[in-house]
């Protein structure tokens, strides 16, 4: 009888009311309660009550552990939100502990379900990117390296399980390429650059100098090798091999351009255009495809022309700056975006994109040319309206590298291009500019 009374007391809705739950449940560890807690935690996150969210998500993780087991993948949903709540509160140490736990859990899943392991790895990688994007986190670069190492381990796992030429490798290899670009973009932090004017044959060139460090060269070589490997994998896969491999050449050209190797880039752009033309892509379609410049590097590796076309929206080019930590880098994906801070604003910019003659560029090999080919930059709109922001937009634009518009594989001048620049969350406004 006493047991029955205790059971009734535990299962009655009063307990649910005590914990603030809208839905009654029969046990604190009831399976569906984990989902209810996650839903409640998300409401706390929306209300910016991160402390309450953290506690709620922590409870959800415990409920998932009790119901599914200590090594169960079902913990990951709650765990992901828990880490987000910790990051929002800048509790770096606790977030780091939970990230390590997530990684351990994911490694446990490897032997049971390989594809689930890959899904978990992607989820963890996005969390690490978020941690690395926080401008207030002094350890941000460490998280970028952790994310990159995670991608490498996924590559090793795919090679061991599916083979060294499996197309499953492609997005992971490209993730490493992007990680190297973010790593390199660290050197574009204003404090590390010197403004200079150099004299070519007859023209003066204005730009920024920086000692080319060994790490920069290593990043270039790794990116170049991985993009070659991607092209090799795509040219041997069964699914429309030539279209995919021709597009891979396009990405190789982008990489060369990003590292200031304009001559190599132009040769590769021509090669990509020739290959696409050879497989029957009509010239007018190619002109349309290459007539709309893109900010480099592309966050996604497209393997078909139709996918790439779908990504080219009408109207101004959209650029969402990711974080002040990685200048000139665009937001890798919506999953990596911060939802807990205010958006600092945007600007609409009009400019001319010029193909720069390679011979003049050869003279300036030691200068990292930022904003290659951008001329007549005009700021049309600013939100918020602040005249001091005008200079900031121009500076941020100079950090961008755009894929030049191509006609018959050759770069052409394009006038009155428009780009909507969305400032990164946590972007310091001009008053904080370093000298």
């Amino acid at each position, binding site marked *: 009888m006493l047991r029955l009374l205790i059971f009734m007391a535990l299962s009655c809705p009063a307990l649910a009311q005590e914990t603030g739950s809208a839905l009654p449940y029969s046990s604190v560890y009831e399976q569906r309660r984990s989902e209810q807690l996650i839903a409640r935690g998300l409401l706390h996150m929306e209300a910016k009550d991160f402390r309450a969210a953290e506690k709620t998500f922590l409870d959800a993780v415990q409920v998932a552990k009790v119901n599914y087991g200590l090594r169960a993948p079902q913990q990951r949903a709650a765990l992901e939100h828990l880490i987000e709540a910790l990051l929002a509160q800048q509790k770096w140490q606790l977030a780091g502990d939970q990230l390590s736990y997530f990684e351990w859990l994911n490694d446990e899943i*490897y*032997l049971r379900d*390989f594809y689930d392991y890959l899904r978990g790895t992607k989820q963890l990688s996005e969390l690490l990117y978020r941690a690395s994007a926080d401008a207030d986190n002094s350890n941000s670069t460490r998280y970028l390296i952790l994310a*990159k*190492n*995670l991608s*490498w*381990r996924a*590559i*090793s*796992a795919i*090679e*061991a*399980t599916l083979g060294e030429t499996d197309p499953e490798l492609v997005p992971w290899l490209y993730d*490493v390429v992007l990680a190297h670009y973010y790593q390199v973009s660290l050197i574009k932090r204003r404090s590390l650059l010197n403004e200079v004017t150099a004299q070519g044959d007859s023209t003066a060139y204005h730009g920024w100098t920086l000692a080319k460090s*060994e790490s920069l060269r*290593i990043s270039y*070589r*790794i990116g170049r*090798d*991985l993009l070659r490997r991607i092209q090799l994998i795509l040219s041997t896969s069964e699914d429309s091999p030539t279209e995919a491999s021709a597009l891979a050449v396009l990405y190789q050209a982008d990489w060369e351009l990003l590292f200031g190797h304009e001559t190599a880039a132009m040769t590769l752009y021509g090669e990509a255009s020739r290959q696409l033309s050879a497989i029957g892509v009509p010239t007018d379609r190619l002109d349309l495809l290459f007539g709309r410049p893109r900010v480099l590097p592309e966050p996604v590796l497209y393997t078909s022309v139709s996918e790439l076309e779908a990504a080219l929206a009408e109207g101004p080019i959209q650029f969402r700056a990711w974080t002040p930590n990685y200048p000139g880098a665009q937001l890798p994906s919506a999953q990596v975006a911060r939802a807990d801070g205010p958006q600092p604003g945007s600007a609409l910019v009009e400019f001319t994109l010029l193909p720069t003659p390679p011979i003049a560029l050869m003279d300036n090999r030691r200068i990292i040319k930022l904003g290659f080919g951008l001329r007549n930059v005009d700021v049309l709109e600013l939100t918020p309206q602040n005249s001091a922001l005008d200079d900031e937009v121009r500076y941020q634009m100079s950090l961008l590298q755009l894929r030049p518009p191509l006609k018959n594989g050759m770069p052409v001048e394009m006038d009155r291009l428009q780009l909507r620049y969305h400032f990164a969350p946590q972007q310091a406004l001009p008053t904080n500019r370093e000298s």
Partner: protein
Amino acid sequence: MMPLLILLGWQACAVSPPKGDSGQFTPTDAEVEQYNARVAPEDRIVCRQEKPVGTYIAKRVCRLQVDVDATSSLHRQQLRRVLN
């Protein structure tokens, strides 16, 4: 059968140093980075261009990071001793 295959895959994933320790061939930067991502910090390697004594021709050499750190530390200590 499937778990066995996965287990074999995991075994194949076990750490082995990058190929080419013969001096004829050294691992690429990408191979070094992939290897370092899988091993404990004390097993990480670093490859760089070095000019051996008696020649100006640089050669790519790979070493364990801990050895490089230990050698640097030893050289610093010796230099300090000489200067003091």
